[in-house]
């Protein structure tokens, strides 16, 4: 992907070519391209003079560094205890019905990916979720309808 190597150069110029620049660069690619392709990761290895194993090793460790294609909007619903107690299952069900996908899947138009994640730090206002970096808490079926209807138009 020519576009990917351009982006990597841009990010490396911004963050540097040290090993410690790796995480910000990986995060930058995910932010712009929604995921890290194999080619992209080998290109990063070349640009930073690291082995592909080092780049793949780091990338696959972190749950927010997706190495599979994701939609434009990645929805991560908190599944940790207090959100689970306060109705996470209904939230997931509502999202699955609205988006017509299951947890782990991406809509055919590549707009939404639905995932579960561990504690998001909104336990007092659960259930909670992130859409990309934006948190939503105190979720109800109605709220989900409003939020998703809004994102569908984005």
């Amino acid at each position, binding site marked *: 992907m020519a576009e990917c190597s351009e982006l990597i150069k841009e990010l490396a110029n911004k963050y540097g070519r040290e090993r410690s620049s790796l995480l910000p660069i990986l995060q930058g690619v995910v932010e712009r391209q929604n995921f890290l392709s194999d080619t992209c990761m080998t290109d990063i290895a070349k640009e930073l003079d690291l082995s592909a194993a080092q780049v793949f090793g780091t990338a696959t*460790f972190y749950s927010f560094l997706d190495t599979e294609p994701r939609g434009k909007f990645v929805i991560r619903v908190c599944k940790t205890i207090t959100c689970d107690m306060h109705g996470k299952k209904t939230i997931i069900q509502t999202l699955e019905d609205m988006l017509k996908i299951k947890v782990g899947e991406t809509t055919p138009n590549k707009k939404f990916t639905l995932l579960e994640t561990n504690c998001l730090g909104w336990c007092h206002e659960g259930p909670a979720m992130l859409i990309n970096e934006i948190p939503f808490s105190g979720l109800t079926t109605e709220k989900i309808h409003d939020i998703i209807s809004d994102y569908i138009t984005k």
Partner: protein
Amino acid sequence: MSDQSLKRVDLIFGEYSNVKYKILADTLARTNDAILKDILDSGLRGRGGAGFPTAMKWKYTAETTSEEKYVICNADEGEPGTFKDREILLRVPRKVFSGMAICGKVIGSKKGYMYLRGEYRFMLNDLNRELDIYHEHAKKLGFDFTIEIRLGSGAYICGEESALFESMEGGRGEPRNKPPYPTTSGFMKKPTVINNVETFVNVMMIMRLGPDQYKKLGTTDSRGSKVFSVSGDTPIPGIYELELGMPLDRFVDEFGDGDTKAVQVGGASGFCVPRKKFKDTVIGFEGVPTGGSMMIFNSSRSMYNVLHNYLEFFQEESCGQCTPCRVGCQQLLKGIVAVKKGEKKAAYLDQLMKLSESMKITAKCGLGQSVANSFSSIVNNFKEEMIY
């Protein structure tokens, strides 16, 4: 009634001084020894959960000779039930950055980092705007200490300090062997002070109030106030700043819904306290320590489901580096499922208990070692719920 209710404190979220970065400016004019003495006298212990005396950490790092030293603020808050650092960073980030800067002065460091969990990326722009103000004031004061924010990417284990260094260095978040400790070999193998968000704010409180007034809060073993994250079956979930050293029964009186069956103190890696032990349990370093997470469960909750949720969490968040934790978490989860389904006899729980005890002794870091806390406290106190 005053005797019964818990003492609320409003220091951590208290307003900024009228003049921006005034306390920082005043403190920078003092000697390092005087600052360290105040922190030592205050009795401040780290607010991330482990409770190491802050003054000692700073002193050891200050005494280590090195061209480069680092100050790191651990904002990788990921313990289930904890959300205090998010609240602090949203409301009073200036106090956090000021605390980091004071640490920089005391230990002789020119560079600080905040490691902010990826889940909190939504705060990044606001925090960077506050950092611009900080850097402007530091420049005016002629103080050479810059702060940069690094983001995590969704890994609980990176809240463990040496895993956090690995992550900042571009690696997998796998904890290192200790010793060496960060005070001699931390980020980039250089002497490093790493403290929790709330600890840095406490330093600012001590600088403002003086150690004597600060010490009036809390108990001998647990000085000062603490920000508690209260969630679960409570009519009033949220953030509360309370004195340390409070008895759990009074906490439950105030925050429970009248039907409290158990309180998980210190998150999934902490301890589950059943109703019959509320009276004898003190929240603080002399009793059950907590990084602030207080999750309340009422009698409608299945403690089996609670434990199942925790074990799933640990199984996913284990870095996988050492066998006791990687395999142990999987086996504990498989084990309780098998007992519940009747595929294994109830006595199998004793085997699992032994496994969790071995994890406590042999796991490389706090994650694997602390799985036994919630495992044994839930299984011992709610055995029948595990079986039937």
